[in-house]
């Protein structure tokens, strides 16, 4: 009996290529579920002093959009933003508006600069996150005072710095999404 030299010679990063296929349900749902989870996670923290946590839902959306262009439809910002508005404490409609605008803006940027790299993506995400931070504060219904801006500044900084980590997490989620999990009988 012949031994195989390399046990993984018939598989790729998404799993064995024989007798396995991707699950359409998983491939379609993982991006949306992860973005919704990103909206939900900050709710579980008690932040009584200041806006503490970066807007994770928006950042995960950005990461998916920049890492996998074309996966999320252009209009996906509206329904996902509506879900975010229900739990984020912002007036209903603010994320619907801002997330839709962000999706359109990134689409236009992509049409203008089709070849992009990590650094440019990070720059785009940082710009979007900073603009989102300002817009969300202005639309929150609270008066924007210098004190509020000062205590919210760490949130802006965190949202810019967390992007590379989120992109790695989204990349591993993407591998999970495309893993050949379904067995073909």
């Amino acid at each position, binding site marked *: 009996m012949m031994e195989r030299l390399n046990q993984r010679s018939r598989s790729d990063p998404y799993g064995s290529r024989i007798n396995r296929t991707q699950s359409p349900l998983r491939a379609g749902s993982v991006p949306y579920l992860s973005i919704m989870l990103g909206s939900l996670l900050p709710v579980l923290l008690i932040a009584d002093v200041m806006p503490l*946590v970066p807007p994770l839902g928006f950042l995960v959306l950005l990461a998916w959009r920049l890492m996998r262009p074309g996966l999320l439809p252009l209009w996906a910002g509206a329904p996902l933003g509506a879900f975010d*508005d229900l739990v984020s*404490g*912002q007036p*209903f*409609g603010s994320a619907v508006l801002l997330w839709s605008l962000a999706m359109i803006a990134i689409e236009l940027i992509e049409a203008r600069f*089709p070849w992009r790299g990590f650094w440019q993506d990070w720059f785009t995400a940082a710009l979007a996150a900073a603009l989102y931070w300002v817009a969300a504060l202005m639309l929150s219904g*609270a008066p*924007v*005072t210098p004190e509020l801006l000062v205590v919210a500044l760490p949130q802006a900084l965190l949202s810019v710095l967390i992007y590379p980590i989120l992109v790695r997490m989204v990349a591993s989620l993407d591998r999970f999404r495309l893993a050949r999990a379904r067995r073909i009988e």
Partner: protein
Amino acid sequence: MAPPSSRRSGFSKKAQFSVFTGYLLAGVGALAGFGLLLLSLWQPSAFAPLRGAAGDVVAPAGEVTAAARTGSNDLFDGVAAYFRAGSQNAALREEVEIARIRLAEAEAVEAENRRLMALLELREGQTKAVATARLVGSTATSGRRLAFLGVGRNDGVVPGMPVTSQRGVIGRVLETGRNSARVLLLTDSESVLPVRRAKDDVVAFAEGRGNGLLRVRLVNLGINPLKPGDMMVTSGAGGYYRPGVAVAVISEITPDGGIARLVAEPSATNFVAVEPIFEPAAVAALKSPREPLDEADATPPQAAPTPSDQASE
């Protein structure tokens, strides 16, 4: 990485239409969002039922993390106390702190009693809490400071009820779901609370500044009688909060009052009590539409000013 070539529409009419439709839908989504935003800034409670339903879904998960949070708080306290002087030390210190607050509150009650007895010879009974629950979450990403409670309409909680911990006032119920409620914390910049100094009757308004501190503005301007370390308690004006509950300690003096630190920090509480509205008749009277106050009163709770708003503006 370049966008996949399948997204270039080329001469395919179908592809061109699908790109066009994508832009159209996204634009419609943005416009709808703008409309919804205007609506919810104009009528803040318009989407309260939806938010209530979402809160009901999130609350059970929040219960777990709330339990974990208090557990870890206790753990850290225990370790810290062991390194200092045994776990008793921590417990005793906490007790002394609460006793100090209680003492200040007792002073307030005493002053209140004296005044009432002088006027009417009235007595007040201890109020009974409507419900007791954990704070299960908060709006940690937003500029607004709202918290979620694990009880709602089914437990008899209605908007306007004050929420207190064993140390003092936490905030006021803003919206209710079936099994969850939103609480407007004192630190929110839309929150205004009528207070007075515990040891005498210097009345003021405590407004949230949005940065974790309260701004205390005196009603009677003149020589500022406040000093750092003064305890401010609720005055009972407006009818929402019963008088004499600890709110904040003055830490800094400003020309028109002071900057105060919270006595009851929501993140450090375990269980909170939802109390009935102190004087429902007074609240109802202020909410009933009348000509001069009509506009501000008719708006729903989020923007709906407590009586104090009217007085302060």
